[in-house]
């Protein structure tokens, strides 16, 4: 399992792996928003938590189709499916690798964009915390979506149609925690809900995703 994790991390960080691409996308989204809504500091401060959450979600989406598609193309997915590790474990590891190369850097990079968007000082901690807690769920749900569409030739667009509605609860609680933090209210309730969603998806979705992969490899 370690070997698989390290292999996936290596593939993602080397040239052509797309690491950094989602960060660049995140940056561009955050830069485009002020052009769209105007440069007023008060407006930006109001919408910054929500924009950053939506931006993180979209950048996460960008790299989802790589989770299984490349392995499927070169046949290593078949090998993984017949390996001694249960397929559920493979899915979990792949989601973890995706989170380590997307969710974690996104959360770490967010404060910089928060400065750009004039996020109130009290909001930085809650925003990063909510992203840290919430992005594992995004990766896991994304891995499930990628497993559903791995057999399709052009699954990318369909993938976003399938996955984005599933992201709604995470987005609601994450952005709520960030917004409350920025306004100086207590943030424990949305964070706990978010943690519940993340843990629930990590516990259950590997089974659904593995079932989908088995169907697709049939």
């Amino acid at each position: 399992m370690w070997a698989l994790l390290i292999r996936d991390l290596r593939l993602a960080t080397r040239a052509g792996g797309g690491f950094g691409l989602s960060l660049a996308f995140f940056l561009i989204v955050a830069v485009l928003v002020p052009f769209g809504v105007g440069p007023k500091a008060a407006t930006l401060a109001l919408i910054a938590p929500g924009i950053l959450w939506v931006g993180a979600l979209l950048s996460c989406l960008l790299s989802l189709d790589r989770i299984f598609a490349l392995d499927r193309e070169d046949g290593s997915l078949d090998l993984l499916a017949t390996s001694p590790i249960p397929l559920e474990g493979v899915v979990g590891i792949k989601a973890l690798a995706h989170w380590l190369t997307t969710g974690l850097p996104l959360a770490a990079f967010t404060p910089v964009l928060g400065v750009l968007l004039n996020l109130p000082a009290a909001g930085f901690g809650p925003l990063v915390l909510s992203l840290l807690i919430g992005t594992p769920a995004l990766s896991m749900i994304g891995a499930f979506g990628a497993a559903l569409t791995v057999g399709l030739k052009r699954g990318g667009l369909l993938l976003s149609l399938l996955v984005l509605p599933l992201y709604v609860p995470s987005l609601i609680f994450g952005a709520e925690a960030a917004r409350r933090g920025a306004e100086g209210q207590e943030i424990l309730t949305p964070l706990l809900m978010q943690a519940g969603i993340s843990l629930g998806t990590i516990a259950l979705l590997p089974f659904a995703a593995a079932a989908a992969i088995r169907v697709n490899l049939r």
Partner: protein
Amino acid sequence: MSLWEYANPKKFMALSARVLPWVTGLAATTLLVGLVWGFFFTPDDFRQGSTVKIIYVHVPSAMMAINVWVMMLVASLIWLVRRHHVSALAAKAAAPIGMVMTLIALITGAVWGQPMWGTWWAWDPRLTSFLILFLFYLGYIALWQAIEDPDTAADLTSVLCLVGSVFALLSRYAVLFWNQGLHQGASLSLDREEHVADVFAWPLWVSMAGFGLLFLALVLLRTRTEIRARRLRALEARERMQ
């Protein structure tokens, strides 16, 4: 004699051919009675005026929008557990109907909301969760259409339906957390004191039965179409082999 006999497509076709005209006729009559009664033979509400009458379309379609998803969930489970093709095809046939029901509920709600709330749309929990339900229907239908092999498509859409149900429910309660409601609570109930007046309730019950029967008729018809389409494909494949 058990229900599972009708998992045999041949038996299902025979039974549905006999039942379909009756269900269709009954649906048409009930809908006609319910809607005409509701629209022309009930008094105007003292505050809402005649706009209250949109309830006879809005409430039944909203109810069916949710029930159709539940029916798809049950059909998907039956497919995953017992591998009955009719079940998978029924789920496939039901999805567009459910999507249209959701759309009807959203549109009639907007038409009513404009004069009553002063706005076509508000990010109210009920409205928002219906919009999300609509997106779930879209994704489900798109997945059916994207996959060529019918068995693979049935398997994957069933898994999506199961996972989607959990998330749809989760979203339903997440949006309660997110915004306060503008939409009123349930108007109909079997056990509570507070209840819509009987003059309005009776035609509403009839319309709801009508929408239920309409769905039954449509889903039977569409499932029959799907079965025929699959037979046709099998015939074509056989001819190509020869």
